[in-house]
């Protein structure tokens, strides 16, 4: 056991955790506000990655600087994914707002299948190469064998997104309205909050962060297909449950715990058991703390 290998695994775990966290935010926020597990959330992440791929492909012939192309594709992908997220809520969940929770859940699964197959038809099932647009950062040269440029960008972007997100939730009017709506929907209406607007903003923000995750991981891995959203979505969902679904700090913590568990598990034991570590860890946590690490125990009224 040497320390370079350990650090490498640790940073790898943080990178994974960052991506999970960017996706898990959307899961946990939507759950907090409308108590729905949005199974199509992973698809938004996948659509973000594909939009970035298409836009950067189209821009490749303009001769612009790769970094500019990357930034433009990222912005377009975020806007597109946010629009997908909001539209999805309007057509698949809003009409079922007053229906039993199971109906909305099935609608979410349907939405997930629809989006996957729609991308499958449009883009085939083959892995598509994702262009390498980010030039190597010079100051990372001495440590490039333990942390490369895309890893650094993933960690830095996630940190910035988390800080901005926290400020938004804590201090802005819409952030407070989101928390109020999550805590008591009827009272939120009685103080004049338009809860439809709050739900829309929730999907908008959650989809945007998921898209950021999709773009980042695609530049890191270098290839994408229609199925990446499903796997990442399930993992991020596990992370959100692990941390305590409905809790934003819980989702972030759960994501990093999950990322590190997977990274160390595959690095020290066997890479064949990646998913076993993720789900095994989830089961262990849920046995001892059924509501997740930072989740509140559900109160039963008698």
């Amino acid at each position, binding site marked *: 056991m040497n320390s370079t290998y350990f650090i490498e695994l640790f940073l790898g775990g943080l990178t994974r955790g960052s991506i999970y966290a960017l996706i898990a935010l959307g899961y946990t926020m939507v759950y907090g506000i409308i108590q729905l597990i949005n199974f199509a959330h992973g698809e938004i992440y996948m659509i973000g990655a594909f939009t970035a791929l298409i836009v950067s492909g189209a821009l490749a012939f303009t001769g612009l600087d790769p970094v500019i192309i990357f930034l433009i594709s990222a912005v377009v992908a975020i806007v597109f994914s946010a629009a997908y997220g909001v539209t999805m809520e309007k057509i698949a969940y809003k009409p079922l707002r007053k229906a039993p929770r199971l109906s909305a859940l099935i609608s979410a699964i349907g939405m997930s299948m629809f989006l996957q197959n729609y991308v499958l038809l449009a883009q085939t099932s083959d892995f598509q190469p994702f262009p390498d647009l980010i030039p190597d950062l010079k100051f990372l040269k001495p440590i490039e064998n333990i942390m490369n440029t895309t890893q650094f960008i993933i960690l830095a972007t996630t940190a910035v997104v988390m800080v901005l997100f926290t400020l938004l939730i804590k201090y802005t009017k819409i952030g407070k309205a989101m928390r*109020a709506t999550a*805590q008591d929907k009827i009272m939120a209406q*009685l103080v*004049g*909050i338009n809860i439809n607007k709050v739900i829309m903003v929730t999907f908008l923000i959650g989809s945007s962060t998921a898209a950021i995750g999709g773009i980042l991981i695609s530049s890191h891995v270098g290839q994408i297909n229609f199925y990446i959203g499903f796997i990442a979505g399930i993992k991020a969902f596990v992370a959100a449950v692990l941390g305590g679904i409905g809790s934003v700090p819980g989702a972030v913590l759960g994501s990093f715990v999950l990322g590190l568990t997977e990274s160390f598990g595959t690095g020290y034991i066997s890479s064949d058991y990646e998913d076993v570590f993720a789900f095994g860890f989830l089961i262990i946590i849920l046995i001892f703390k059924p509501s997740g690490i930072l989740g509140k125990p559900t109160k039963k009224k008698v």
Partner: protein
Amino acid sequence: MLKIENLKTYYGNIQALKGINIEISEGEIVTLIGANGAGKTTTLMSISGVVPPRSGKISFNGKDITGIAPDAIVPLGIIQVPEGRRIFPDLTITENLDMGAFLRKDDAGIKRDMDYVFNLFPILAERRSQRGGTLSGGEQQMLAISRALMAKPKLLLLDEPSLGLAPILVQLIFDIIKKINKEQKTTVFLVEQNANMALKTAHKGYVMETGRITMADTCANLLKNDEVRKAYLGI
């Protein structure tokens, strides 16, 4: 100011309000008393737009407001303090008050009104950064009323403000209601099970039984009425 005509509200197939008529004039305290399940809360929720009525008419200052959304009712100045107070448990006292002023944009006015409610309930000022869920029942009621005041109510709807409070706090809350009515010229519609306190505080009273208004009179007369005395005052 507020006029309810032949209002009928249903929950699914269950009729909660069977055609009620209520009239509230500006500056008054009007009370609605009745037993559990009579439809008092439904009446308030219908006014606030949370439970849209199936038929009938609610008008406010001559304008028809039947069936419009809660976030369109609040800016008119119809503000409800709901049953069970419904404090946002994970927001601090200050944040709860901010939420009360959600639709207002006059920062100076919001600041002034926050000072006013902190003056009204000094205990809230002391605990301003404490989470709402950690407050006692009495403090939560104070916060609920304060949050409503932050919305600059013209008509304040109060649902069972005395519920679950110690007698000394009940007295305090009712004194404050009278004070708000007098100082701020706020019209108050008070729903209560504590008929004794309500009739002593209000000017006009309605008695409700299983979705119908059975009596309407001045509070002085209702307090003398034999039926009311027997059924609601226990005398």
